[in-house]
């Protein structure tokens, strides 16, 4: 029974938490905890792989006498769960391996170690859960444990604030999911997913459930405009936790959405896809634009997660549209694209956060304006970080490109959709997707170029040192995974087949049999892509050129000062900074979206004051949505607070009027 073994693994992780509390004082605690977590995650990963590849579509379920009485806690592994288990535990294993090195530099291990394994366990439980209560409990416990990790460094008020916003948004999401399950389960309280699958909701109720799920799962995965907590919370946590939150937890949220909308909710209505697609497109573009405006490396990465979530939701939305219109094959393509992107993003986003963490360790800096030239001091980190950047910018031959390519193929199928709304929306979403892809490339040119290339901008950057071997091992592992998934996508697509079979009733054609490991989404004549060959061609022609030139022409090389049109400036301050790099894009997009203004203050003639250039930007979503709510709560509590300071006579008046009111009600009662 796969699920039983999986639960054993989770139990080990849970047991680690108290162990960590006990050990916290000792210096070996971190290696013990992370080592054990690594082993547990790996074994869970193996279990998941076994249940996904062993006999696909095989479902193993079990129930424990825990959780809700008279229902118990149900757990189940089907293809979908298995896939997400792989995502979770791959990320978990990588993070634990990374933390074996990174965790040593933690100054307050006792505030990190106990919650880390609990957090991993919670994410596993969400995926395993098979009834509403266990699902929500695990879901909220996931938020809770990660909250504890976010405020691990609680001396910094910013982290406390981040954790506060995070916890509020997370509970908001959980509560809306709770309402969704309230509808799904009905007042009879049929909380088991099996029972929910049997029951059928009316169209209106189903729509409400969809929106609640969109709000609940969306706020957790960070769709615009519910993303506000994400860029605050993810960077605040220790880097390996940031990687988990950004790379894995958002995917768990996506899992929740898929589970509810594709599995529990029954046949979709066509306009649902409009909602999901629209949100996805906006999320993608807004996310990457936000990211471009950042100069805090980890915050940039966090914002960029928002973009990738948008891409995933675009895939899911297309799948919904095709499913609603009875085009299972196309739906399978779209769903596979989305899921494949889930996997890819979890890989390279974790990789990038690890890289950021190593930089943070080496320099103590998260602000790109204080970095630069790290490629000389930490070449290996620079290399893997570069791989991550190329992958996340959706450039061939790495994996990011494949999933976006599949999404494009799915979009190209959608003219066959009958409904007019989609006819207009889908091309627009396609344009948004293309835009976000291009902007992503710009964003990571900035991220890598400013922090790793150029000249060091601060002494901290000058004294940077290469990170430790464990961290490097984790990062190289993920980088290799990026390449493999990029050049052998067929394997992954086939692995996803049982999921799309279960959810949309069809799957993409079998890939791995094809010549040269090409992938053909629909038909050979229509489109095909072969990452392996492209990779081979590029590397071959590159090396041939290099060989030829070095052999036939010259291979001599002299070092000299930089040319810079003859005006080289020794000061590194003359380099382009992160914000100046983003300036053209800010002028193009930000003027309207962020009300970005550049105010140049020129001192009057004769004054020796320096000229200043101030950029002021507004997060319109925050100003327009969150600030008013906060203000409302403030005002309401202020007004009501008067009731704390009344005189006894006035309190009596309250009682008296309540009495009279109720008597009046009785008097006019029919």
């Amino acid at each position: 029974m796969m699920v039983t073994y999986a639960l054993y693994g989770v139990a080990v992780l849970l047991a680690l938490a108290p162990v960590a509390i006990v050990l916290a004082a000792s210096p070996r605690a971190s290696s013990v905890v992370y080592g054990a977590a690594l082993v547990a995650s790996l074994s869970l990963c193996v279990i998941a792989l076994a249940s996904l590849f062993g006999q696909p579509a095989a479902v193993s379920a079990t129930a424990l006498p825990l959780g809700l009485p008279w229902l118990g806690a149900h757990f189940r592994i089907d293809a979908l769960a298995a896939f997400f288990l792989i995502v979770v535990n791959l990320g978990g294993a990588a993070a634990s391996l990374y933390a074996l090195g990174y965790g040593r530099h933690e100054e307050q291990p006792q505030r990190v170690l106990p919650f880390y394994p609990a957090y991993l366990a919670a994410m596993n439980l969400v995926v395993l859960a098979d009834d509403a209560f266990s699902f929500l409990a695990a879901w909220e416990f996931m938020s809770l444990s990660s909250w504890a990790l976010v405020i691990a460094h609680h001396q910094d008020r910013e982290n406390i604030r981040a954790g506060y916003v995070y916890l509020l948004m997370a509970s908001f999401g959980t509560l809306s999911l709770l309402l969704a399950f309230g509808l799904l389960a009905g007042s009879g309280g049929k909380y088991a997913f099996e029972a929910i699958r049997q029951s059928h909701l009316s169209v209106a109720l189903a729509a409400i459930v969809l929106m609640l799920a969109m709000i609940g799962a969306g706020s957790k995965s960070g769709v615009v405009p519910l993303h506000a907590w994400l860029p605050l919370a993810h960077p605040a946590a220790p880097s390996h936790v940031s990687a988990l939150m950004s790379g894995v937890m958002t995917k768990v949220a996506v899992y929740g959405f898929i589970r509810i909308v594709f599995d529990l909710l029954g046949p979709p209505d066509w306009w649902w896809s409009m909602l999901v697609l629209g949100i996805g497109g906006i999320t993608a573009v807004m996310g990457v634009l936000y990211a471009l405006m950042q100069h805090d490396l980890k915050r940039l990465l966090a914002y960029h997660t928002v973009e990738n979530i948008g891409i995933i939701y675009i895939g899911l939305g297309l799948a919904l549209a095709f499913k609603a219109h009875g085009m299972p094959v196309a739906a399978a393509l779209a769903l596979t694209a989305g899921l494949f992107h889930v996997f890819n993003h979890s890989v390279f986003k974790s990789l990038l956060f690890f890289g950021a963490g190593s930089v943070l360790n080496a320099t103590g800096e998260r602000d790109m304006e204080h970095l630069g030239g790290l490629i000389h001091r930490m070449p290996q980190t620079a290399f893997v970080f570069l791989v991550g950047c190329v992958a996340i910018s959706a450039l061939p031959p790495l994996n990011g490109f494949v999933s976006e390519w599949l999404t494009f193929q799915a979009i190209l199928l959608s003219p066959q959709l009958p409904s007019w709304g989609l006819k207009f929306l889908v091309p627009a979403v396609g344009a948004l997707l293309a835009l976000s892809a291009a902007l992503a490339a710009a964003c990571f040119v900035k991220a890598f170029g400013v922090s790793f290339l150029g000249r060091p901008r601060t002494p901290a950057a000058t004294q940077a040192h290469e990170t430790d071997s464990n961290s490097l091992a984790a990062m190289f592992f993920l980088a290799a995974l990026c390449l493999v998934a990029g050049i052998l996508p067929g394997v992954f697509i086939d692995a996803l087949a049982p999921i799309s079979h279960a959810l949309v009733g069809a799957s993409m054609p079998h890939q791995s049999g094809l010549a040269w490991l090409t992938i053909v989404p629909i038909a050979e004549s229509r489109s095909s892509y072969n990452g392996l060959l492209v990779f081979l061609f590029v590397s071959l022609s590159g090396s041939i050129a290099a060989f030829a030139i070095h052999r036939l022409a010259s291979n001599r090389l002299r070092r000299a000062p930089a040319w810079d049109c003859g005006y080289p400036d020794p000061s590194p301050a003359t380099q382009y900074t992160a914000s100046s790099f983003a300036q053209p894009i800010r002028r193009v997009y930000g003027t309207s979206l962020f009300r970005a203004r550049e105010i140049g203050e020129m001192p009057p003639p004769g004054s020796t004051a320096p000229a200043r250039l101030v950029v002021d930007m507004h997060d319109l979503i925050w100003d327009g949505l969150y600030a008013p709510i906060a203000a409302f709560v403030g005002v309401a509590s202020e007004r009501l607070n008067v009731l704390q300071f009344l005189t006894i006579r006035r309190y009596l008046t309250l009682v008296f009027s309540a009495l009279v009111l109720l008597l009046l009600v009785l008097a006019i009662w029919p």
Partner: protein
Amino acid sequence: MIDPLTGILFVPAVAAAVLAVLPGYRLSANLNVVAALLTFLIAVSLFWLPQKAGDYLLVDDLNRVFIVLTTLVSFTTSVFSASYIGHEIEIGRLTPTYVRFYHAMYQVLMFAMNLALVANNIGLMWVAIEVATLTTVLMVGIYRTHEALEAAWKYFILGSVGIALALFGTILVYMAARPVIGEGPYAMVWTVLVQHAANFDPELLNVAFVFLLLGYGTKVGLAPLHAWLPDAHAEGPTPISAVLSGLLLNVALYALLRFKMLLALNPAAIAPGPLMVTMGLISCVFAAFMLYRRRDIKRMFAYSSIEHMGIIVFAFGMGGPLANFAGLLHMTMHSLTKSAIFYAVGHISQVKGTQKIADMGGLTVTNPLLGWGLVLGVVAIAGLPPLGIFMSEFLVVSSTFARQPWLATILVLGILVALGGLFLRLNTIAFGAPRGPTAPAEASYVPMFAHLAIVFMAGIYMPPAIVTGFENVARLLG
């Protein structure tokens, strides 16, 4: 072997008498603990006692749950109060005379609450609850400070009006019952009333319920009748705050439930549900907003009690097996959690020498056990898993949303706002740079962590016995 039913009344009564004359706080504190423990053990034995109803006392599934909960919390509280009072005496905030008075009153309170729970006569129940109220009034004022007297006075006046209203309601119930049952004491015996409730005059019952709702609702602390509650919690000794929040509110609620059952049995009478639901929602949302402006830690958690009472009353008002079950569970969990929180708060304010939130900070650094205990308690009270209140809130919301979407939504918003308020303050208290005196606390952690452990357990696994018990009660409540 004395009959347990009388035992749970007898032991506190005797203990009260003894404590009233016993000098020396150490001894009397221990005696207090012993008496409470004894009462608790006897109460537990009630489970093996068959249902029985005399003219004045009765045991049934409903009050078994309440009695055991009450005696348990009063036992743990007595343990806590032993160490708390010890500290108060050291710093000279209380004189031995007052402490003797305090212990005696404590047992009187136990007696009154147990009596209210086992009373089979609505008049007797009324008397018992009023005695309990007056006792707590005296204990709230025990510090004799400006604010303590203020709070006690406010509590006293509002309480007296509540008493009067409740009595009028009781009289009306008797009037309604008399034509059916006939004159004499039997028209006030609960079990008899229940049998004939269907034939009572509905109009009279309605008026009666209005008065009872307001009268006992004052004790439950429902808005807008709540005014006494925050100050009484804030100014009294912390053990009393724990008892108030953890027990006295429940006892009043118990009375309310009894009469709700009575009305529910009469088809012609108005449904008590909507009234309770409305007041519950008002209390929940109102208290949630009130959390934001609090500066005093005990007053804050008092408001949180109001909020949770609102949730419980909402659940019972909605009715139905699931919601009732959830209400009971929520009530139990809230009693345990809130008293645990007050234990922590008591020691914290003793360490910091103040109740001002602004003067506390970084507790998890300076006093890890207290700090993390408080964090755990707040996490529990905010309804986060894996603790028990999450389960009850899950059941309340999910079982009512399908029936009353808007009401459930309002409730959810209230819960969310309350969570925001609680954590806003918790961040200041438990995290960040330490503020205020950072002396290590000489505290008794056992009661607090025992409660939290129970709550934690309940959130993960509920023993079938308890579940069936609750289910019976839920069915009883209809």
